[in-house]
Structure formats: C-alpha cells, structure tokens
C-alpha cells in the first residue's frame, strides 16, 4: 500500500498529516515514510535521528575537445538549449540539461560521453523501531527536483507500506510523487485559496487515475464551500482537524500531534482505514 499526501496549496498541513499517519501506523506495523518535497524537505525535523546519505546523480555530457570537430549536430539536437557550438569550442549549460542522452547519440564522432553530476542526496534514518524515514534533498540552486524524488521512491520500491509526502503545486514534482501510488490524501484548508488549489490537485489525481480523499485542516467551522465541492465531486472528507493554537504550537515546535495528544492516534488509524477503503482493499 502506497499512500501519497498532497495538496496543491502550500502550508495546508501535508507534512503534519504524513508524519502523524506514519507515526500512528508504526505503533503496530512496519512503515516507510518518504519525503518527496525535496525542495523543502521537513519530515526529518519531526523525526530527528542519525541518518546515512547517498548522492543522487544525473548523467551530463562531457565533450572531448580533441575529437570534437564542432560540426554542431549536438547543439542542433538539444531541445533545451543546453549545448551551444562555437567556432572553437562547445559551451555546455548544465542547469538547462535534462540528461536525455540525445547529444551522445547524435554525435557522429563519438566525442561525447556522460559523467555523473550530483543534484541532491537521499538520506536514510530509523527514528522509531518500526519507522524508516527516507528523505530527498535537492541541492540548493539546482532546478530539477524530479530525479531526486525518483531516487527516494526507488529506494523504497520494495517496501509494503509507504507514506509519501509530496511538494505543493500541481506540476512535475507532484506527478512524479503520485505516480504508482494506490491512494492520495489531499490536505486542504477552508479558504478560497485552499479550495481553488484543491480543485487543481483533484484534477491531477483524476488524470493519474489515483483515488483521492480529503483532509480539512485548521477548520474554523466555515467549511461549507469545501464540503459542497467534495459532495459534488464524490470525494470523501476523511478527517477534519480543527483550528487550535495548541495544535499549531505542537506542529511549529516540530512535535507530533499523536505523540502529545494520544487521543488522535485513533483518528489517524481511522484515516488509514479510509485510505484502504478508497483503493477497495481491506
């Protein structure tokens, strides 16, 4: 069972839901928590533990200037403008390269080979006896999050129960995170911003064919517009977390709601049951 936690809008409480869900499940079974918000990973703040790290690399072209005759084929082929062939040399812009390998294929002189370039790291920790935490970190200044997300997911591909914390937004990092998941929890807040972005996130899960359910966070009771939207789109509101300064403080300090207020364990347990029901599994 692989469950992604996503939202569209940032700051709605994805990390809070993912962390508490994984903490709750780890009371009774083995669970892997994956931080796929590699631009701003935060889960490790809630589960401090020693971690080991592995580099994430992508292949980038290296041109052998001795063999290259500046024919220009690589520069013509590159769809991203990452290679510019001048009269006396070839300029390579690594921040534009998508590592497709096309330049090595088109070079008639075989003057291009690929070498690994680091774009981030994946860390591995075991903060609790039955909880593994795998976090992706995009190196700051690097634009492409997807290879780091892919590496973090690959590291957990064989695990049976996986909770994935997605980045905000609706573009490629979110698609990469959701791909292959059995269910998706969409965390929202009852504001026009939250609802607007929830609609976009629902659109993404529908395009990917992933069943989704809703968690309303920081509810001040004025949830009617969100409830109407969910009703009209046949989306279950699986959990509502009230706005409460106490809960906000637990979260802002890096603690877990279910650890401080153990009565919430039952609610997160029920949330997991509802996610399973979304997929049709027991």
């Amino acid at each position: 069972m692989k469950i992604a936690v996503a939202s569209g809008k940032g700051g709605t409480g994805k990390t809070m839901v993912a962390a508490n869900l994984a903490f709750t499940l780890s009371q009774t079974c083995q669970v892997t928590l994956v931080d796929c918000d590699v631009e701003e990973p935060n889960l490790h703040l809630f589960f401090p533990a020693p971690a080991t790290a592995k580099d994430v690399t992508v292949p980038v072209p290296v041109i052998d200037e001795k063999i290259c005759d500046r024919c220009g084929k690589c520069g013509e082929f590159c769809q991203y403008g990452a290679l510019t062939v001048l009269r006396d040399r070839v300029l390579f812009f690594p921040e534009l390269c998508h590592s497709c390998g096309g330049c090595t294929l088109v070079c008639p002189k075989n003057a291009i080979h690929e070498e690994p370039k680091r774009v981030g790291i994946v860390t591995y920790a075991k903060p609790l006896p039955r909880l593994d935490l795998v976090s992706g970190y995009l190196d700051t200044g690097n634009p492409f999050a997807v290879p780091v997300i892919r590496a973090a997911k690959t590291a957990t591909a064989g695990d049976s129960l996986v909770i994935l914390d997605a980045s905000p937004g609706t573009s490629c990092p979110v698609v990469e995170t959701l791909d292959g998941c059995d269910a998706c929890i969409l965390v929202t807040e009852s504001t026009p911003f939250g609802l607007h972005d929830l609609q976009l996130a629902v659109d993404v899960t529908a395009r990917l064919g992933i069943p989704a359910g809703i968690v309303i966070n920081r509810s001040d009771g004025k949830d009617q517009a969100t409830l109407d939207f969910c009703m009209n789109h046949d989306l279950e509101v699986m959990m509502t977390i009230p706005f409460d300064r106490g809960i906000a403080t637990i979260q802002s300090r890096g603690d877990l709601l279910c650890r401080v207020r153990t009565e919430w364990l039952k609610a997160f347990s029920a949330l997991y049951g509802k996610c399973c029901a979304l997929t049709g599994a027991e």
Partner: protein
Amino acid sequence: MIRLAVISGKGGTGKTMITAALAQLLPGTLVLADCDVDAANLELLLNPKLIRTEPFMGMKSAVINPAICIGCGECESHCRFNAIFPEGNTYRVSPLHCEGCAVCNYVCPVQAVSMEPRQTGEVKYSQTERGHLVHARLVPGAGNSGLLVHAVKKMALEQDRDCDLFLIDGPPGTGCPLISTISGVDAVLIVTEPSVSGLHDLKRVVAVCRQFRPRVLVAINRFDLDESLAESIRQWCTEESIPVVGEIPFDPVVIDSVRKGVPVTRAGDSPAAQAIQILKTNLEQELTIHDNQR
C-alpha cells in the same frame, strides 16, 4: 524599475496575502505578476478584469503513429523519462511524463514518432485597480512551470516596462519555478513563519537566492504564534545580515479578508493591516537605499 519578488521557501506562509496588500499600499506605477503558476491565487484578491489570453506552448511532446510503429521498442529503451510504454503490438507516449527531448524521434527506425506542439497552459493579461496583472494557468500535471514563469515575467516586462515597480508573487520551494522567478530581480522579500519548518526552509531558500543577484529581505508572518521561534528567526537573520522588514501578528481578519476576496488592508483597520503598513514603509526605505547604491 525596481523588481521585487515575494517568495517563501515553505508554502502557505502568506506570500499572496502580503503581495496583494503591498500592491495596494506601495506608491508609484505598478505591474504585477503571479509566478506561482501551479496554484495561482493572487487574482482571488485583486478582482482582475481579463484583457487578453495567450496560449502557452511548453516543450513539444512525442507522438507515436501506431499505423507506422513496428513495435521494435527502440524508443522505450532509449527514453530516460519512462514516458514510453507498450500498448498492444505498438508503443505509446505518456504526455504527462514526456519531457520533449526527441530521442525517440531520433532512434525510431521507421519514423513513426513525430514531435508535436502542445499547449500546456495560458498566460493572462488583466487590469486591476493598481495596474496590469500578468498571471497564468498551467494545465494540472503539466511540466515546464519554469518556462511558464519566464513567459509571465516576459509579458509583464514587455507590456509595462515603464512602471516604477514590478511586484511578483512567487512560488514556494527552491526548484525551477523559483529560480526562474528570482532571476533578474533586484530584491526578494521572503515571508516566513515561526516554526521549525519555516526556519529550515528559510535557510534553504536564502542559500538559493545567494547564488543569484537579489538583495534578500525577510518578513515574519504570524510572529506571535511562537515568540521563541520568532526570536530564533530574528537572530539567524541578524547573523546573516538580512534585514527583517516586517512582523505581522496572527489576525483572524486575514482569513476573513481572503474569504471576502480583498487585500487585508481593504478589510478595515486591523493589527495585520497596521503591521503591513510598517512593512511597506521599511520596504520603501530598503529599496530606495539599494537604488541609490547602484
């Protein structure tokens, strides 16, 4: 023209709320851009009147003609993006995964693959009370959000280059939309919040900004929700020589104003509105000082 981007690192700290209020308060002529193209919300506070829409063409996407495809699988084995998969006796491209590299088009022995233009969003040019707004809509799930950010900024600069201020509502994160947003701006205002996540994400986004040109300024939103963490943020900013130009208290009027669809500075006198007024004054001073130094 001064170019200022409001960004945050962590999502949901209040970028859009502050951008809308600053748009109302800052003097001079103004052009606005919403560069959070994945989840654009600025229009929900500024009630813009749409002037025109232009299609946004992202990267081309590969399309396999099943009538020509011989099912050899060369395309699938060369695709680095897992975008090609078998379907019956032929292959198909998933447009959600295709990054438009054209390698499949190159390796196909029977020319069954074509590269086709694809509209992945639109750029909108609108009128608000405070000047033009360029905003966009990305097809949910589409890539190239960095390119779309570039298109939004380009339209704003082409259409309204004579304005005194170019004010940008930025995306969260540190990846390609953020880098595309801050490239070429004079200053960034980073909106953070007093939480361990807020401080952690602030440090990362500052590290990205320092690889570019802009002057870095910080505002702490909902600072009173955790005074000791707010103090940690102030201390860190002092150590890093980053001016904290504003501190906005938690105020239920903010959510009320979002529900009314107006900037908080239009929702009557409130602690948040007063704090943003001070932020605006500090910001003007910082940006003028910066301008004189150049």
